[in-house]
């Protein structure tokens, strides 16, 4: 496959298919008006409405706040504990069964309990989001720290680094590629838990907005809300990838040499 073809013709195809799907949707909405089939322009208008004015503050900002705080907690907790557990191998058999059990409790199942303990507060939502998204980071960090090349640890010992220095200067950078893989999974889980926690118990946020509009049969707003959540997810994923590319520039080049198939 030549490079040029990969760029020009498929792009037309891609635009064509999207345009076609939109056209079919619009056509269906026009000849068969149904509550679940709002017109395209109404969805777009609803989407635009979400991003400024009162709705921005009552739907998007609360969601982003919960997501951001919980996600930060998950990344910090997960990587700190993960690196510690992963490098102190003696600790592993003690905590492994408990971890292996906890990670398989679906975060949704925790939600009612969290509601009971914290009430319908942001604390409760942040707790559930963080609970769900800590595990992928934690497990990835453990895994990354365990796979650190033992020879690098020897080098660090000959240079007489303390254990704390070894963790920060050797184990952390070596485990970072693995941690980032975990963070990417954590992000998608965090988004899901954000929506669920707002669907079940909230009076603001995107989840609540979607649910209320569904009950009011304002479906264009429902679709607009779903699109907004998708946009946030996409934007955060892209931001994360950009950040990762910067931090892990060495890793991509390195892996490219070791394993030409890529990262």
């Amino acid at each position, binding site marked *: 496959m030549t490079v040029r073809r990969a760029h020009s013709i498929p792009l037309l195809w891609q635009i064509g298919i*999207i345009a076609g799907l939109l056209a079919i949707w619009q056509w269906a909405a026009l000849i068969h008006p149904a509550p679940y089939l709002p017109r395209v322009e109404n969805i777009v208008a609803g989407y635009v409405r979400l991003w400024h004015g009162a709705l921005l503050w009552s739907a998007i900002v609360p969601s982003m706040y919960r997501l951001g705080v919980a996600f930060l907690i998950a990344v910090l907790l997960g990587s700190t504990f993960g690196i510690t557990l992963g490098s102190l191998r003696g600790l592993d058999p003690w905590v492994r069964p408990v971890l292996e059990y906890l990670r398989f409790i679906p975060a949704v199942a925790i939600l009612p309990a969290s509601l009971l303990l914290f009430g319908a507060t942001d604390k409760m939502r942040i707790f559930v989001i963080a609970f769900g998204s800590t595990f992928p980071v934690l497990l990835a960090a453990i895994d990354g720290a365990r796979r650190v090349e033992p020879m690098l640890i020897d080098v660090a010992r000959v240079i007489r680094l303390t254990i704390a220095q070894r963790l920060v200067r050797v184990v952390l950078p070596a485990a970072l590629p693995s941690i980032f893989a975990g963070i990417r999974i954590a992000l998608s889980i965090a988004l899901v838990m954000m929506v669920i926690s707002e669907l079940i118990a909230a009076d603001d946020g995107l989840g609540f907005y979607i649910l209320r509009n569904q009950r009011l049969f304002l479906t264009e707003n429902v679709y607009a809300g779903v699109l907004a959540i998708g946009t946030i997810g996409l934007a955060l994923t892209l931001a994360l990838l950009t950040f990762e590319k910067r931090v892990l520039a060495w890793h991509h080049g390195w892996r490219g040499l070791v394993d030409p198939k890529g990262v």
Partner: protein
Amino acid sequence: MKLAPRLANAMKGAVGVALAVACWEIVRAGGIVDPRDLPSFASIVRSVAIDLAGGELAIAFLTTFSSWAPGLLIATVGGVIVGAALAMLPRLELATRPLIEFLRPIPSVALIPVALLILGIGLPMQLFMVVFASIWPVLFSTKAGVEGVDPRFLETGRVLHLSKTARLLRIILPNALPSIATGLRTAAAIALAVAITVEMLTGRAGIGFYIENVRLNGLITEMWAAILMTGVLGYLINMLFMAVERMALPWSLENRDR
């Protein structure tokens, strides 16, 4: 592994579990939360036994299972077919890429209100949600697995004059199986979570509804029992998939060093 270290590890693990239970009791006794909201661990274990034997909890699990299993099955078949097609037909992949990249970042549960609008409350809606959420990991792991087939294997197939179908079934698919299996395990966990979410939100019978219902009725011990048992269920499902994987794919790289 020899028996002695294995036993030692099991003992350490048991101590770890005991410590976790002790932490639970300390949080309870420390007055950080209302002790009524956090019943003693012993009472929860007792409640697990009673509820499972009494059938209510067991029935709830079976009900959830009855939408989880077919949903996962559909997602697996669909994910493998679409994933393989995308990997083997680059034009199709290029054409549909924007659509897939558009759908992928949308958290599945955000579609629950939409699915409610179109399908109403019921098995079809729950199935749709389970399939929509769990098809992605299968799809992408299949795609990665098929794309990752060593070209030398394909060339071998051509040298041996295998037909296209034979190459697909005898070379590409076996090579992609370990990757598919990993995706399937992820999908199983996601399917369970989504099935529970739908039950919780729409009041359809099953473990999700059970947990929410006992909470609303103030049966706190029963709620914790059900939550902890859900974890056990998730754990068992994963164990089952891993065991099947190990038996069916002993040559997979992931199983070799075990």
